[in-house]
């Protein structure tokens, strides 16, 4: 039977991306999500996870990032929790989308992609932890993707 909620913990290491991908795929397949939806969920979580472990910790210690994926009434809800330095990705600057190849800066692109692939992104700082809640509607008739600012 499909489980419509799954929680797992990842260590603050890049090689955990494979684990993350596996978890998202297993959840997606057992809940009958489209491969496009699984791809997009994967990409958004990858970008946010990579961002946390690349910039979120000032020490060399190993940290745990906790992720929950749930499916409720055609909405995918993701929680990402980490004990890194306070960082609110919803306030991060968007990259300049009108740039040419010479002046194109890549900073902020990952967060920009993640925001674009989700319908809602919420940030809370609670008990010394960053808590991100992402929502993605999975209605069959998906609206045409539009580029969002910010």
């Amino acid at each position: 039977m499909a489980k419509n909620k799954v929680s797992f913990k990842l260590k603050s290491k890049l090689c955990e991306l494979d684990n993350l991908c596996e978890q998202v795929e297993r959840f997606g397949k057992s809940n009958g999500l489209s491969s496009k939806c699984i791809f997009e969920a994967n990409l958004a979580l990858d970008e946010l996870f990579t961002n946390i472990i690349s910039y979120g910790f000032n020490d060399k210690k190993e940290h745990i990032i906790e992720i929950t994926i749930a499916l409720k009434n055609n909405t995918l809800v993701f929680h990402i929790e980490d004990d890194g330095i306070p960082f609110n990705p919803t306030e991060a600057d968007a990259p300049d989308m009108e740039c040419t190849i010479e002046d194109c800066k890549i900073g902020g692109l990952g967060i920009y992609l993640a925001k674009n692939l989700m319908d809602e992104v919420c940030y809370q700082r609670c008990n010394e932890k960053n808590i991100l809640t992402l929502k993605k509607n999975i209605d069959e008739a998906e609206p045409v993707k539009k580029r969002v600012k910010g």
Partner: protein
Amino acid sequence: MEIIEESQGGINIFKLNGRLDSNTSQGFEKKLFQAIDDGSKSMIIDFKDLEYISSAGLRVILKATKALKREDGKMLLCDMQDYVKEVFEIAGFDSFLPIVGSMDDALQAF
């Protein structure tokens, strides 16, 4: 991710297979820049078997394209799967990176 390197008529071809993310992008960057250091001016990246790309992958391709351009070289990207292409589009990279349909189209562009 697997990277197969081939050479055809002086063009370096990189065939990617698997996932290009922050875990695998460094190895790919090394291979691209090794080729640029070795004097390669014409490159094709074959995306046919690439099932996934993140911003880390986009970053490497942008960096290599810039480096090649400085050397008067050129890089073409071909045969992308729809989801992968969508990532280039959301990032706005499709407006300045040469993405073509097939390997034949890419070879003919040189």
